[in-house]
């Protein structure tokens, strides 16, 4: 077999492009292929896939095109062109046979073209053999009729085939989506059957109703004699309007379910108002009753491929789903992000896809700033792939919601410019969380410095211990210096305590070295339950020839080192000794 016919003067290395047995078929919206040259209108990706598809076919591998039949038709015409060069009819027959067998949409065409070629070369035997193998083959205009085309696909009976054959091929964008057309056809057939039932309830057939209404129109519009050929023809032609109208209703119902906003005009449009009125009365009103429930019951949820086509068709259709997501948002930002990304995938053919992410970023900025920036990066990702790079910035108020500081804003701007430069989406997304992480200061300590500090502290503690320890001024040691002569000085140290008559029994710790005066004062406290008013103590001191405060102060100084606190506290108008302190100073 011949190799690839390169019509673009470019060559492609296909080895790594697609993994074996895993084919991601680039979507190619259905169009009528008239020649191999129609491949020129395909995208680069589609072209690359076509060559893979062809190579696989030639190697006996038949890739599932997932409804993208254009590739099969291109191949058909490709084979025809090759035949034109070498006239190898045997090879062509095999190729067409395989093509028709594996890509059923091409079967009729393959047979039709083969038959023509066989007729041209006068190979009657092959022609007869072909017709023998498949009696349904005939290349005629009826093939194009809806009923004939969808006979097998929709498992239609003959009545349904005939019903659908009455319709003109719908040629709008919505019906160009195969899955949508199929749903409309199924709904149409079901609707028709229901209309039939309703009519039968009135003891008429639908055809009788159609004939009646058509008769009103034809009679008024034309002056044909009833029963004449012209009359009959006009009736049939008029009834086509009815079939078409019912089909439009069915299509609108499917459009409604598939949230395709644009609807068809379902006015019958006959110029005879009586006929219109009658039609509305007998048909339209019944359809309006039946259709919503019927559509709900029968129309299948759109497959993701269908959704993709629909989103591409109606570039603002995403807003319906988007509004649903924002209305139901309850704080699960992760789910919101997944839903938006999923919505984005379904909108991959939508040239306005970037707006989804921009709006989502704006919405979520109030709730979760990281997700807002992530979705903004996705916005940029798609914006860069669009025809014009808008590079819309987040508004100032949204920036305020998201960024706590100029640094964070600046860091994000760096991420954005980096992404625009290198288009590394994953890298950009990974750069977002660190923007909001506070740069943690690392605390590092130096072991040598710590040792120095500890040594220094130890020295300071020792120094201060010296200064903070009590010199312990003993009031009972009397130091007298007596000048004896010019050269001699006698220093006399007298322990006052030793000189005392020791009249007062010293029940206190010997470490304290309390004077007699101080012991007397403490006895006075003991007699008064360790609590004396300041006035009473003043009187007591005065009676003994002492000043009250110095006495108290002297006792406190003496006991301070022992107790690490003062013994006698002044509290409002009382001098108080705490019981446990008193117990502490008693001799053990």
């Amino acid at each position, binding site marked *: 077999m011949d190799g690839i016919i390169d019509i673009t003067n470019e060559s492609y290395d296909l080895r790594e492009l697609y993994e074996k047995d895993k084919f991601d078929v680039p979507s190619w919206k259905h169009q009528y292929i008239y020649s191999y040259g129609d491949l020129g209108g395909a995208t680069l990706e589609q072209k690359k896939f076509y060559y893979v598809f062809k190579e696989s076919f030639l190697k006996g591998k038949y890739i599932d095109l997932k409804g993208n039949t254009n590739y099969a038709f291109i191949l058909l015409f490709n084979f025809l062109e090759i035949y034109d060069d070498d006239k190898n009819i045997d090879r062509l027959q095999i190729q067409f046979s395989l093509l028709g067998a594996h890509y059923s949409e091409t079967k009729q065409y393959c047979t039709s073209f083969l038959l023509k070629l066989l007729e041209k070369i006068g190979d009657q035997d092959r022609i007869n053999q072909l017709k023998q193998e498949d009696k349904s083959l005939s290349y005629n205009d009826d093939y194009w009729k809806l009923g004939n085309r969808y006979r097998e696909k929709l498992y239609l009976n003959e009545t349904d085939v005939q019903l659908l054959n009455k319709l003109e091929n719908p040629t709008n964008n919505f019906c160009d989506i195969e899955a949508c057309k199929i749903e409309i056809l199924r709904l149409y057939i079901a609707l028709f059957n229901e209309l039939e039932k309703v009519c039968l309830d009135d003891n008429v057939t639908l055809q009788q109703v159609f004939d009646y209404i058509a008769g009103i129109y034809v009679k008024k519009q034309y002056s044909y004699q009833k029963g004449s050929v012209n009359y009959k023809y006009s009736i049939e032609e008029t009834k086509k309007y009815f079939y078409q109208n019912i089909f439009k209703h069915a299509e609108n119902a499917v459009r409604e379910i598939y949230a395709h906003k644009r609807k068809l005009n379902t006015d019958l449009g006959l110029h005879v108002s009586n006929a219109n009125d009658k039609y509305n009365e007998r048909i339209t009103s019944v359809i309006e009753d039946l259709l919503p429930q019927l559509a709900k019951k029968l129309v299948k949820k759109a497959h993701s491929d269908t959704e993709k086509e629909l989103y591409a068709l109606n570039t603002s259709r995403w807003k319906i789903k988007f509004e649903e997501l924002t209305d139901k948002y309850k704080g699960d930002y992760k789910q919101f992000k997944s839903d938006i990304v999923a919505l984005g995938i379904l909108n991959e053919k939508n040239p306005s896809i970037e707006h989804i992410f921009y709006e989502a970023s704006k919405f979520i900025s109030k709730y979760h700033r990281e997700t807002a920036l992530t979705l903004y990066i996705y916005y940029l990702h798609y914006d860069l792939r669009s025809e014009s790079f808008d590079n819309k910035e987040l508004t100032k108020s949204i920036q305020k919601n998201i960024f706590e500081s100029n640094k964070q804003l600046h860091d994000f701007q760096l991420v954005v410019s980096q992404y625009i430069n290198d288009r590394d989406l994953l890298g950009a997304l990974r750069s977002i969380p660190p923007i909001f992480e506070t740069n943690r200061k690392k605390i590092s300590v130096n072991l040598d410095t*710590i040792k120095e500090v500890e040594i220094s502290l130890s020295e300071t503690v020792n120094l201060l211990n010296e200064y903070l320890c009590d010199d312990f001024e003993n009031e009972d040691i009397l130091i007298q210096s007596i000048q004896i002569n010019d050269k001699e000085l006698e220093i006399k140290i007298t322990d006052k305590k030793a000189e005392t008559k020791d009249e007062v029994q010293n029940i206190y710790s010997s470490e304290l070295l309390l004077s007699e005066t101080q012991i007397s004062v403490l006895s006075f406290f003991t007699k008064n339950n360790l609590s004396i008013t300041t006035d009473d103590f003043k009187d007591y001191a005065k009676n003994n020839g002492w*000043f009250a405060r*110095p006495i108290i102060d002297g006792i406190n100084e003496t006991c301070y080192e022992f107790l690490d606190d003062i013994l006698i506290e002044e509290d409002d108008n009382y001098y108080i000794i705490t019981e446990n302190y008193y117990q502490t100073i008693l001799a053990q």
Partner: protein
Amino acid sequence: MINIKPKEASAIINSLISGVVPKMGVQHITVGRSEEINAFVLSLEDVKNGQSLVKFWIGDFGSGKSFMLHLLNTVAMKQKFVVANADFTPDNRLYANDGKGLALYSAIMDNVAIQTKPEGGALPTLMEKWIEQVTSKTSEENNIPVTEIRNDQYQKLISANIMKTINEITEVGGFDFGTVVIKYYEGYINGDDQQCRNALKWLKGEYKTKIEARQDLGVREIINDQNYYDMLKNFCKLFVSMGYSGFMINMDEAINLYKIATSTMREKNYEKILTIYNDCFQGKVNNLFINFAGTKEFLENERRGLFSYQALKSRLETNKYETAEIRDLAQPVIRLMPLDHNEIFVLLKKLREIFNSNYKVEIDISDEDIISFMEVIFNKPGASEFLTPREVIRDFLNIMNLLRQNPHVDKSCLFGEIEVSDERPKDDLLDSIEEL
């Protein structure tokens, strides 16, 4: 094993958790202040020996100024100094002619403290102690028994000795000072508490008019804005004659002088500082130790700070050979640098030991945990602006307490719950103070 008294450990832990400086054991937490403390104790010795000094403790919020002043107090009182503390406020200052100078004096005298009365209010005790000394001396000199010396017949003798002693030690205002002390003595002997109170009121500068003072005490003069500084010098001499090592006065929040709106008044106050400075360093007064504490702005601002007064600037400028590593702590200005991470680490380690010693436990906090704690707290919002050692210590001890009572709690969860709060005083922008 840490060498610390149980009482000190308890005081340290309980005080620091409350965010105040402990009254005992403070030497154990003087991390990073060795040089300053060495300089201070040398200064204290100098003052004990008769010199007088003025020091300026300069540091920003959270640098430990109040901690150092508290430490100075504790050491000085232990060294038998009489100590007084007063904060500058908008209502008191060094120089005034509307009573604000006197208000500062009253605040100082109200807060006079000694070791056995560290909380202040020691002036009556000191006065009685001094009177008792004079009385004892009189009794000895005249061979009068101690039990009889307070009799009426000897009152004149004692009054004469009181006046004689006062005249020996005072230069200015001695006559009225002596008269008031005699009045206090007479009030005490005669049981006239009101007279004693009036005498104390005069000594504390609480008489607003001479008429009042004359009516109550028979003296012509009162302490006022112009003469209060002389009275402080008189008291210094008095305390030294009583046997104390000297008189230390600490004045904090010097930023309030910076905030004086009129430049003339502000300069007068700085002039007063200069007068005190010169008196001390020129030997005109002995055994007086004055400490001012303020921020860097108070010192160095060339428009409003001390450096705006040229005479002070030339005396207080930093030794130009000083560096961060080689410091001159002999100069009047001592800058308190914030503790660095190493010092805070050592401090927290020390606190861990003190805590364990206090509660006789071994809390499971390793050195690495301490570093993790420091990382967490120093990375909290606001940490770089207003985190202080006080807050770090308080949070650390609170966590230790929780762990002590709940040993199975996850430390990292506790660290994560720390919040840093702004404890700075709510000052208006200093430079936006209106200049009058």
